[in-house]
């Protein structure tokens, strides 16, 4: 009997841990989405500019002048990076969801045993 109880406790712990992980992943996902959208707006703005535009980049407390081509490349690269990151987090989310599903099944099985 105590064996089953212990297993139940272990599974419950695992379950809540996994749920915390999932929540963290989802927060990370939405943060990435915000960054992605912001960078897309910046890129769209760059599309309207040309080489003559004076562009500055805020680095710490100062504004540094920047090359149009360089700035645009930076943002494009950043968008690519964020896209990869989003994909990475999304696979993690599905993995975690699968793990939660498994733990839930385990809990249900143990609970059924305890009922008997």
């Amino acid at each position, binding site marked *: 009997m105590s064996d089953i109880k212990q297993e139940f406790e272990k599974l419950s712990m695992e379950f809540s841990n996994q749920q915390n992980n999932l929540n963290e992943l989802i927060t990370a996902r939405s943060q990435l989405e915000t*960054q992605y959208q*912001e*960078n897309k*707006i*910046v890129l769209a*703005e*760059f599309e309207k*500019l040309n080489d003559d*535009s*004076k*562009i*500055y*980049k*805020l*680095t710490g407390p100062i*504004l540094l002048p*920047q090359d149009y081509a360089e*700035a645009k490349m930076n*943002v494009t690269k*950043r968008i690519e990076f964020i896209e990869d990151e989003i994909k990475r987090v999304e696979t993690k989310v599905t993995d975690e969801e699968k793990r939660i599903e498994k733990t839930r099944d385990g809990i249900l099985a143990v609970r059924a045993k305890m009922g008997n």
Partner: protein
Amino acid sequence: MAAPQQQIDLTKLQPQQLVEVRKQIDQEIQHFTQSLQALQTAQAKLRDCVASIDNLEKSQDGTGSKDLLVPLTSSLYLPGQVVKKNEYLVDIGTGYFVEKNAPDAKKVYDVKIVKLSEDGAKLKDILMSKNEMLNRVNMVLRDKMVEYEAQQKN
């Protein structure tokens, strides 16, 4: 997002489940209301930017004052005058600033304001449908309670 959930027949749920559903909808409504408020604050800020440009433009054609107070800290200001005009540094996001003239600078903000208005309208639609859902859940829940009480009496 929550579209598949709407397919559930509310009347077949247990009262406890209904309470859970209600709690969830409540949370969603709260979340969307907060988002809507954030959108409106952002929009007000953008409008301030456009108004500031308009003010400076007025000082240029002589209809407004050239004087302004330059903030050194949040509590220390220097009286100043605008020397160079029609040149604005616009924050386009992620730390990038671009030098623009007044009409172009205003265009940046106007586009954003329009975009926010559209998003705000979408949010309002979502909020309305969520409120409707909440009302439906509440009604079903009330019916169940009446039913339950009637059963208790018998």
